[in-house]
């Protein structure tokens, strides 16, 4: 039997190959309007230093309303799964996976959060936001945001966390996603895109696609970092297929096959409830990409 954390981390993160119908929005797809937003200002980059699953604390959880619906308990809408409310009182928050977290932690995957953090420290889960054309950390009507994966062995501070301000290599194996955004309310940024996340946990290298996604960043006005959350949908069958490929213990595999479809709360393009929502909370610190890493940096051109 494999180690519990090793089995449940892929489960939680929704392993899967990219679905063609929900392909990550490629940077090159960005249109003319994006070029205007990115032009003229500096690029500010953040790397996620701490990542954790957003929890359901009595019906309250960080996350986003992905389907535009508020599904109360007992309703048949929203695939019949009740939505949550975020700590700021916004209803309709989709984060079905949060309901599964306690069960995972009580059974096999108690170390899942630690594994995520270990992956970050080991350079196996380096997620970046590049804010292109950002002139003002508190108010900017038009910027481009590029979400991407970095690689390499990061420098750690004496506190054991990623050292702020360090430089990373781009990971060319995962396509970045890019979209236009605004910075409002003194530093809040909303960014909607699909998120391709390359994750290596122990020996398993996994490609996670979070579709219909939304990221929110609250930028510290002094540039020292950002906090926020990423919410998105994971295609259940794709993830189950991926889990099957990884030779997971049959008992756990059966469990996963049972519980994942049960938390489906979002509809896919074909209108069936075949996705579940999940949300991460994160803390990010300033970062850079190397000036010369052999890869093209995102530009307005």
């Amino acid at each position, binding site marked *: 039997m494999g180690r519990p954390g090793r089995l449940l981390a892929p489960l939680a993160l929704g392993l899967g190959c990219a679905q063609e119908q929900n392909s990550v929005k490629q940077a090159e797809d960005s249109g003319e309007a994006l070029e205007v937003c990115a032009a003229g200002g500096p690029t500010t980059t953040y790397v996620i230093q701490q990542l954790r699953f957003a929890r359901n604390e009595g019906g309250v959880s960080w996350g986003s309303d992905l389907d535009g619906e508020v599904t109360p308990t007992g309703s048949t809408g929203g695939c019949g799964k009740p939505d949550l409310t975020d700590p700021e009182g916004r209803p309709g928050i989709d984060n079905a996976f949060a309901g599964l977290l306690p069960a995972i932690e009580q059974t096999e995957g108690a170390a899942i959060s630690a594994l995520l953090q270990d992956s970050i420290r080991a350079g196996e889960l380096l997620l970046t936001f590049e804010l292109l054309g950002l002139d003002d950390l508190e108010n900017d009507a038009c910027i481009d945001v590029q979400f991407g994966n970095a690689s*390499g062995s990061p*420098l750690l*501070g*004496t*506190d054991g*966390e990623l*050292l*702020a*301000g*360090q*430089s990373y*290599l781009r990971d060319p194996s995962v396509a970045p996603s890019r979209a236009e955004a605004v910075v409002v309310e003194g530093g809040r940024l909303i960014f909607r895109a699909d998120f391709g996340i390359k994750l290596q946990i122990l020996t398993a290298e996994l490609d996670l696609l979070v579709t219909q996604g939304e990221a929110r960043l609250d930028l510290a006005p*002094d540039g020292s970092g950002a906090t926020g959350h990423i919410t998105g949908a994971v295609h259940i069958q794709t993830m189950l297929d991926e889990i099957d490929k990884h030779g997971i213990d049959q008992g756990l595999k059966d469990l996963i096959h049972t519980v994942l479809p049960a938390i489906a709360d979002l509809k896919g393009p074909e209108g069936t409830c075949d996705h579940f929502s999940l949300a991460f909370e994160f803390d990010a610190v*300033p970062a*850079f*990409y*190397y*000036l*010369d*890493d052999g890869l093209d940096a995102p530009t307005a051109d």
Partner: protein
Amino acid sequence: MLRRLLPAPRIALLLAIGLTACGDDPAKKPPADAEDSGEPSARPPVPEVAPGAPALRRLTRTQYENALEDTFLVDLYVPTAFEPDNEVEGLLSVGASTTSVSAYGVELYEQSAQTVADQVLADLTARTSFLSCTPSGASDAACAGEALGLAARKLWRRPVTEDEQARLGALAAAVGAESGDFDEGLRTGLVAILQSPHFLYRIENGAGEGGLRPLSPYELASRLSFLLWNSIPDEALLAKAADGSLAEDEVLEAEARRMLDDARARRGLRNLFDEVFHLYTLPTLSKDPLAFANASPELGPSAREETLLGIERLVLDEDGDFKDLFTTQRAFVDRRLAALYNVAAATPDGFGEVILPEAGGRRGLFGQASFLMLQAHANSTSATRRGKFVRTTVLCQEIPAPPANVDTSIPEADAESPTLRERLETHLSDPYCASCHRLTDPIGLGFENFDGIGKWRPTENDAVIDPSGDLDGTSFTNAWDLAQVISDNPNIEPCFARHVYRYGTGRLNVDGEDELLAWLADGFTRSGHSFRELLVDTVLSPGFRNVGEMQ
């Protein structure tokens, strides 16, 4: 609050010293033609000089290693910890003429010589660097003498007499005969050469009578090569010494310029600034990991390399204006330093050039981690140390050391005194402290936006840091401004002229050299602050080529 433990007379003396702290101000000795007439005046002739007495300098550890490498053409491991090099007025090169060797130190040299000899004989390249004959037997004195004579000529930086060569050969032959092994004899001969005072000491006695006695050609060659390469002369230089031509101005200048174009000049320049800026202490510098998240054992060596790379590029590659060292936005950083400076690294591996943004508030030497780390405490900044470094090392002004029985601690931060500026008010308001601290602290406070390892910080204990101040009447608003103010200070030229002169001659300058130092500083200015020209000028100066009366 500082405790006052000094008796009144000592306090008065301290105050008097403090008030005259800039008494040796090199800028107060301008060249005779310093008045600005609008047109550059012709450079005055070299002034007469009465140099200091000759000094006997022990090779520093670095020079010992460089000499071995240049002789045997391989990088040899020297495992022995010699007795430490001594520092005088901030320079090991000057301290080298004040050190002595204890009986234990002699043993250390012997151990090192044996280890080196073993390595030399075991390495084909090293072995063939001096052994070209084929021994006829274990006791072939002629072959051993020839090989050892060649090695001794390089290591002793002078011709080996026939008698010396014969004695080395006889020693090797005797040991070879006894052991039945030619190499064992050779090894003994090498150990003897490496323990000889002719190797371990730089002998610069000069010749003739009076107060201006020329160095012998070989002494001059050695002084030149240790200044520019921090190592022994090469064959070309020894040849110029052998034919006597090195004493000619043109030949000496040509040799100096040739040597500055040689790769070994990087080693020499690095050592010079390693000493002047105390960079050699960075690799062992320890910082509190709880106070600084960026602290790491690699940071000190990286910081040292950054400063030295910048100087190398400025002086040897570009022959640029040396004052740019203080204000340049160009930096050579590895990824660890780039993270500390919050800039994108140029490359994942090694060091790369980046341009520091003005918004980062960091530029030049005083924005580099080497300065900011060294001139700080293990867990905090030190405005006093940073200011003292500027005064003493960059402007060559003198700051008296604090009396031994004064409590130099500063108050803990609290709501009333959140930043160092408020906490240092004690130093600046107490007359017992102010005489010195008013010279250092206002400068050091200008760098308070950089913490004890050089990371930018806008606040301290949640209070906004005020980095403004003034340097001898010239105000500045922050470290960025302060870099320019320091760079514009007229003490820079005479100060670095003095550093080079002291480093090259291995002793402190004496009164009879004041005019020469002012002349060198003037030349440095006229050259557009070309450090290369300062080095060449120094080499050609009579103070470098002569020694004073033997004492």
